[in-house]
């Protein structure tokens, strides 16, 4: 079809190039074209957070982003973060705390948690709940998710201090 456009972007570290219809959202592009089905769509209007991905370092709703808008960008999905093992401690904390049930919201939750935990300091429970305010979960009631994120924040803080002896006891 003549109205296809070419998009090239880096997804999970690999450059991809496809001819797509311009109306395809980034979410559909990731899920259907690239078969990266870890990213989910729950509302397709930017409310539920199941479709969150990282675009050039920022967490964005892939359902509100056209794939063509991501042309030239670097995208990272839950599959990429898993492969790079940068969220392994978050995933482990979610697993141990049972901070997921059906798991459909979980990739989006992990994106939000990853962004929050990439900032310095230990967020309060209120900070964590506030950060999760764009992620809808129907199963858990959220407390386990807050607990898991809080645990990783504390562990990372303790680990950072342990590896920086000059700060111990400060």
């Amino acid at each position: 079809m003549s109205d296809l456009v070419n998009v090239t972007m880096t997804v999970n570290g690999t450059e991809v190039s496809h001819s797509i219809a311009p109306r395809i959202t980034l979410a559909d592009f990731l899920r259907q074209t690239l078969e990266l089905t870890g990213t989910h769509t729950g509302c397709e209007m930017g409310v539920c957070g199941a479709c969150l991905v990282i675009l050039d370092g920022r967490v964005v709703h892939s359902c509100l982003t056209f794939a063509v808008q991501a042309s030239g960008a670097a995208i990272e999905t839950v599959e990429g973060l898993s492969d790079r093992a940068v969220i392994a401690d978050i995933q482990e904390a979610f697993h141990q705390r049972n901070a997921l049930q059906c798991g459909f919201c979980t990739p989006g939750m992990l994106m939000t948690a990853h962004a929050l935990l990439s900032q310095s300091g230990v967020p309060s429970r209120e900070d964590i709940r506030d950060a999760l305010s764009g992620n809808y979960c129907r199963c858990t009631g959220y407390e386990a998710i807050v607990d898991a994120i809080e645990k990783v924040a504390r562990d990372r803080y303790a680990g950072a201090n342990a590896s920086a002896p000059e700060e111990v006891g400060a």
Partner: protein
Amino acid sequence: MSVLTPLDRPNSYIGRSVPRPNAKRLLAGRGRYVTDITLPRMLHVAYVRSPYAHARIVSIDATTAREMPGVRLVATGEDLAKLCAPWIGTMDHFKGMKSPPQLPLPIDKVVWSGQAVVAVVADTRALAEDAAEAVYIEFDELPAVVDIDAARAPDAPVISPELGSNLCFHGKIDTGGVEDVFAGAAHVVEEEFHFGRHTAVTMEPRAIIADYDASEGQLTVHHATQTPYQFQDIYARHYGLPESRVRVIAPDIGGSFGMKLHMYHEDMAVVGLSMMLGRPVKYVADRIESFVSDIHARDHRVRARMAADAEGNILAMDVEDVTGIGAFSAYPRTSVVEGNQVYRLMGAPYTFRNYRADLQVVFQNKVQMSQYRAVGHPVACTVTERLVDMIADKTAQDVFDIRSRNLIPDDAYPCTSPTGYQFEALSHHACLAKLKAMMDYDRLRAEQAELRTKGIHRGIGIATFVEITNPGPAFYGVGGARISSQDGAIIKITPSGDVHCSISVTELGQGTETIIGQIVAEHLGVDSNRIKVMTGDTDTTPHGGATYACRGAGIGGETALQAAKKLKANVLAVAAAILQDEPEKLDIHSGWIVDVATAQQRIELSEIARIAYFRSDTLPPGTQAQLSVAHHYAPQGYPFAFTNGVQACHLELDVETGLVKILKLWVVEDCGRVINPLLVDEQIRGGVVQGLGAAFFEECVYGDSGQLTNGSLADYLVPMAVEMPDIEIGHVETPTLDTQLGAKGVGEAGTAAASAAALNAMNDAMKPFGRTVAQVPMTPARILKALGHI
């Protein structure tokens, strides 16, 4: 010497917090939901929906749509009616209930706004939606029946004229003499309650792929459902296919909560479309479609009164419930079960014996209302618990004291409720005492009094509840519905000594596969990491009830337990033959056959399996090793295993804005034997939050013409992390003696009483103003109205 607990035995998994092995896949983004599945040559369907709540279909013109790019089929109600036999959502044990026949797509009229009318199948969903926009349907709008009173008026338009009225079901319960009890009572309280419609809003919308292979006459359906066997039966019967040629696979399910066990028109249509095309056809509801086609829940107006003597001893309840269910009763479980449980669960925790109730289930031009998590329970609980608080007010008693006075004593079991429910053993008083201690009740009351002097208005509300779990055939089977109350399991030992269990209860994220693995591991005597549990495929698991009404742990768990014991006996028989010993003197620990007396390891399970599978020639003559077993279990004894508990809600009300801060929830719950505390507590928390959603946020708001006015996630409010409190949970364990496992259900307990506790807390907060509220959700506007500010 230290005291050994049951958890100190080898392979003791029951009672342990074991994380879910299958959750790791979901955490890595490797879940496989129906929405993720793509099959070769798969097509996609979009539906053209009715913009009217009630209208005659005059004509359908799809000429343009059929010519559009990628379109493979445009099908109407008449096309699908040639393949699909109609269904009627009634059950025999609801005497006199009626409901009209339903078809995948309507032929001559639409009965709710959003009803699918025409199916457009194309190469992609986007192309199907493009073509759907080009389908022209001429409607002749009819008066919409929306309000439950207007629907019952003598001159009301009748939605299904062949039924004679808009009344689906009329039920009455009367223990006799209630009027006299009220006339002679020292105290009578009464209230009119309103429970809005809300809906499941599962994260994954409904999703289905039907794949009909004409060469084999084989239908395979990948279906996001909690009850695959029920749908295997339905698809086979209504499309005239042999049951053996219908396979339903339920892979990872993105939330269900009862919503995904009903027959939906679009889903039934997808099967027919695939049969017409001979290709896989996929349908995934978008969020707006979910709001207008998923079942809604509740929708009750309850007028109720309670009588008590001068001391506050409850004497009687008198209840009238009117519930709106949409234009027909849902299939195959009917839309009467909700109201039936409302009017049978009223007052269930209490000792009073006099009860009268009237239930009217009403048709209206809205989407179907049917079973959703905690079917009927929140309504019965809220009405009862609010009236109990009103009696407490009348008699100047504390909310704990009034309940202590009236709850069935913990030593009074077995006993029967005035509505006929049989209680094996409940623990209301133990739960109440535990809750009071957990929440530091006296301190909270002192703090409340002090804060009131500063203009800060906090409320404390409690609600006791019972919950129906482990249902036997009395639930559906006796009514003629082909819905099983039994489950089946096949457990086999692999040649290397691993264990494979396929079972008919299903996994929805609540942890079914985990607890089945725990039970099998413990009762077979192997490490749980050597067990694989498979669920959700009618071709590879035995037929069973699957997951509904809190039956997975209690019934599915007992099935697994008995199957594991059967398999263990088989293993020990072979082991005894090999070891030339007696089976009774052998046991299995951690995958080793051991001496019972000494625990000394004799031979490894993997070695038994190796010999049995590859060197049967070395076994004694006549030995036929049976290292796979199939076993079924159907509940007997009590018709249901009732659980019980009590919840407390602490909130702060801003009386200027009507906004509420939910400070904390406490739950003490008795679900019998706890198999996995981690999973049980998370079931309760998730359930509580769904109850709080109903209490404060969630409502499907309809306009006068039957239009849903807030059918999107931007307009329909769901509980989010920032509004939800931490929830503290305690347990009392009263195992059911009907099973060896002793487990009852727990999935609905949180939802059953959370909104009742919240409503009581809100009324407690409003007490200084002499104002009350009896409607959920308690939106800020409704609170301000109750306070007299607007």
